[in-house]
């Protein structure tokens, strides 16, 4: 499922990147790697996100989040 569906405090792993190869390469360089863990830290009204990606903090908008597909990790914390 796309990253946009993840709620605040939930954790997941990246399983797939979609979109043009330039975009995927760029995401990869920023550290969006398959298997890396993501967690939603904050959401704004426009569904812009601040996420925890492994050990870094990333800000991204909804369109970008739609390119990142994830799988939930069991036992995600409720917040």
């Amino acid at each position, binding site marked *: 499922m796309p990253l946009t569906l993840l709620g605040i405090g939930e954790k997941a792993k990246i399983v797939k990147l979609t979109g043009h190869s330039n975009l995927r*390469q760029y*995401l990869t*360089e920023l550290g969006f790697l398959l298997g890396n863990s993501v967690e939603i830290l904050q959401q*704004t009204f*426009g569904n*812009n996100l601040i996420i925890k990606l492994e050990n870094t*903090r990333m*800000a*991204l908008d909804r369109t970008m989040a739609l390119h990142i597909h994830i799988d939930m990790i069991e036992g995600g914390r409720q917040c």
Partner: protein
Amino acid sequence: MLTETTSEKKSNVEQKRKIIKIGLCGNPNSGKTCIFNALTGSRQHVGNWAGVTVEQKEGKVNFGEYEIRVVDLPGTYSLTAYSIEEVVARDFIIKEKPDVIVNIIDSTNLERNLYLTTQLIELGAKTVIALNMHDEAEHKGISIDKKKLGQLLGMPIIPTVGNRGHGIRELLGEVVAIYEKKEPLVRDQQINYGHEVEEELQKIQTEINKDRGLLDGFSTRWLSVKLLERDDEIVKEIRSTFPNQDAILKQVEKSQTHIEIRLNDETEIIMADNRYGFIKGLLQEVYRHRNADRRTISDRIDKVMTNRFLGVPILFGLLWVMFQATFTVGSYPMEWIDGLVGMISSFFTNIIPEGLVRDLVVDGVISGVGGVLVYLPNILILFFFISLFEDTGYMARAAFIMDRVMHTIGLHGKSFIPMIMGFGCNAPAIMATRTLENKTDRMITILINPLISCSARLPVYVLLAGAFFEEKAGNVIFGIYVTGIVLAILVGQLFRKTIFKGEASPFVMELPPYRLPLLKSVLIHMWEKGSIFLEKIGGIILAASIVIWFISAFPRNVEYSKNYSERVASIETQYDSRMATLNNPEEIEIITAEKTSQIDTIQAQQENERISKSYAGRIGKFIEPVLRPLGFDWKAGIALITGIAAKEIVVSTFGVLYQTGVEENEKSDGLREAVKRNMTPLTSLAFMFFTLIYIPCLGTMGIMYRELGSARWTLFAVVYGISLAWIVAFIVYQGGLILGFKG
């Protein structure tokens, strides 16, 4: 700063010093600038934005018998041809061939930072790694086996804390060791791309090796890797230099197809994956992280600062504080400088005998340069805040908060950063658009940036608003800034709907952890930017002041329409005869004052006529018809023309044009009063709007030309600016007249 030799032997040593050239390379937010500052201290040269094409910061440090020249490369995540910054950094490494590369790595973020390192490995660059912010990493429970990492990478590793200067000496020692080939760790390393890709790389290499004649500085393997990755720049390079280009490119295409069929993904992605595979392997050996899940203080701060309700108010609150401080705090040192300029002015008036030389020094140089110098405090305070935003990490949050708003003009949040920087100076702001990945996003951001009112325009507002709107000046100036922002948004929307159609590209950016800014580094950054203002004063503003004085002072002999000296004489005789009949000392005083004021009026009329017949007057009169509908006289016209060189010169021009010929005792009441005699509140308002919009200064135009890569678009920016300025000023002035204000 590190090892200054004793002065008696200094010159001797300097002659013998060996020169080592190093490049600093690293991700954005890796603390590269801190390391650069710690290395070079004050001995650095910042690229002059105003037209000269120096893109890199350079500095020097003496270390033992070596002089180490440091070039600070732009911060990048990779060395592909994805963004201009990456190309600049890569070209430097390949073409300038620095002796050693210092790769600065954020220890808290090892995985991503090592990606750039893999590219340095492939380039075969002799590299030492500065494992920066290792204190922060330890604090976060990260441990890195430095010795093992160094062995695996074939690069020596020095832990550093840039903002405290830890590890800098060791880093320099390592640079020398590599330069002298005494570092046993250094060896050539390779990234293994797996069987399928390696086979194809071999084939391409064979093809390239068939004609090695033109190979210069490129390793064959690196070329093959880049070709396989569809790197535009390298494909161009091959096309222009290799005689057997067709065969090479054909092989590349064949290899790509082969790989993509076999591995079922695009070649670039496969290669990047393999690099990360290499990094993952490394990390498994050397990296441990305890309590990785912990929420950091930075996260807690973000809960407030980027909160969906509080984020925007906090941002605007901070901007408001910035402007308030700029004007209120800045007004005190401004008065001191003003007083000082006044003292210097009267000093020279006293020591130089009356004549052309005195006019040149006092009316030309001192009023022109001094008139602008008083704004130095305002400008430094503004830059202080901008540096503070950058150094704390808040700037990235501002981009995130404003992303939604920026989407309304078809841009994303990253475009907001150049807009804030534009409050300081448009030239570096336009350069900061390089972080935008999308070309049309970048074009729009560049084209609307001059509408963001830079600090050079501030003197014009402070002078005019201060003169005409007194205690409401702050609000008027704030209103002009807001107008600039609103216009930028409207123009951006218009461009997006007409010239650059399409959607905004998606937004993603790293939010570096909040850092407590070090006063020293904020001050260094403030000074870097502020000193450009001083350079301008010593250079272009000084030159312009002299030119403006010259064209307004010459020709000396004009034919007057009236005989002024005769009138003065007649008044004198008239009063003298009247006074002869008086005895009362009080009455005599009153009559004398009356006489002086009448004579002054006539002399001012004479000076006015002379100046209107000077060269400046003639030029001004020539363009006056265009500016009449806006309520500007020819003097304002001249100020606008000279202001193209640099906006501060508008004030210098007022200083020269409005103050020459005014009696000494009246000069003390300053430029404000002089301006008041020549403008009304309404014209001053129209004039401020015109100044806000009309044209980017020469320096900014130079940068625009370079960054847009097109003379046509630069010209477009100029033309639309002037047209828009005229329209806005026209509406303000004519609207004001209709509403019954005095024109």
